[in-house]
């Protein structure tokens, strides 16, 4: 145990480095992102389903849409209120939410989520059509 001094020092240094982000940011909370709705989205009042559902579960809907459109060839979604939507990320979702940077990306960046939708799907169909 003659190296006790060095081991303890090493441990302390290690803990300091590892815990650095915690004490450096103590007491400060990064404000949650505020998404901006476009005028068109505001006017619609409600998305495909209720706002709360879309906030929490939009990825489930997108997954369902993708599966249904590509694998089953069905492209029309009728919501419980009887309204019909063409199941398309670029052409339906982004038709209202044309401000991807201030809508999708805001939350995704905050939560460090990196969806690969945009590797293929075109970001804004409205722009320069």
């Amino acid at each position, binding site marked *: 145990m003659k190296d006790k001094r060095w081991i303890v020092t090493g441990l302390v240094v290690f803990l300091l480095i590892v815990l650095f982000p915690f004490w450096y940011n103590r007491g400060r909370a990064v404000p949650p992102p505020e998404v901006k709705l476009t005028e068109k989205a505001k006017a619609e009042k409600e998305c495909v389903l209720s706002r709360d559902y879309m906030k929490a579960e939009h990825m489930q809907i997108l997954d*369902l849409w993708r599966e249904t459109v*590509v694998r089953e*060839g069905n*492209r029309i979604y*009728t919501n419980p209120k009887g309204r019909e939507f063409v*199941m398309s990320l*670029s052409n339906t979702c982004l038709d209202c939410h044309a401000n991807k940077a201030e809508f999708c990306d805001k939350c995704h960046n905050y939560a460090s989520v990196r969806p*690969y939708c945009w590797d*293929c799907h075109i970001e804004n169909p409205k722009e*320069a059509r």
Partner: protein
Amino acid sequence: MDIRRRRILQLLGLSAAALTVKPVYDALAADPGAARPKLGPGREQLRAKQWVMVIDTRRFASEADVEPLIEACHRIHNVPRFELKRWEIKWIWATEYKHAFSGTSSDRFLAAAVEKRPFLVLCNQCENPPCVRACPTQATFKREDGIVMMDFHRCIGCRFCMAACPFGARSFNYTDPRPYLKHTNKLFPTRMKGVVEKCSFCAERLAEGKRPACVEAAGGKIAFGDLYDPSSEAHQWIRKNYTLRRKVNLGTEPAVYYIV
């Protein structure tokens, strides 16, 4: 207090049963008629048992006749153009008889007109597609209407399908195609690096009641319809004319017919 083992077990069982009361009640009390989202095809969806294309090659004399069709397809599907041949991506292209029908015909000397003629080749949407069997993730699959479809979300880029396809109808994205697109059709997605792509008989247009882009651009030189529907134009063309298909001896049953 004296409590017997049997009594404890009874109480435990009863408590466990009590916990299930609420979920069961909720499930039974839910209104069965409550509106739920419905998924379905659009009203204009075109249907068939097996889509086929019949190309009247007699009416395609030169490159100038086929170029607009290729352009129409590649433009709406965001197919990039690469200078580097190895990276080439094509959904539909023109080739000579000797390449399109190699092994099918043993003619050493062809009619001069046929020899020079451009033959449009594309994915044959085989009735017995080898690519579908080769795909380990079922990213490529046969739809009910006969279209051999690609699900780019599932493609892992293994290229087994390219090896399996006897027609070379599939292309691999060796690089991100986006910088190489001159025009982008904002209504259709692009692809990403590492996926395989090919012609899909314009499945997205059939859903809207439109015929494939190349058929539309051909202005009556290509028939499109249901192979098994005697009233369809494609069926009638096949009945009236002598047609060829590519590499039939392999048994893949191609769904693209050529009137020579």
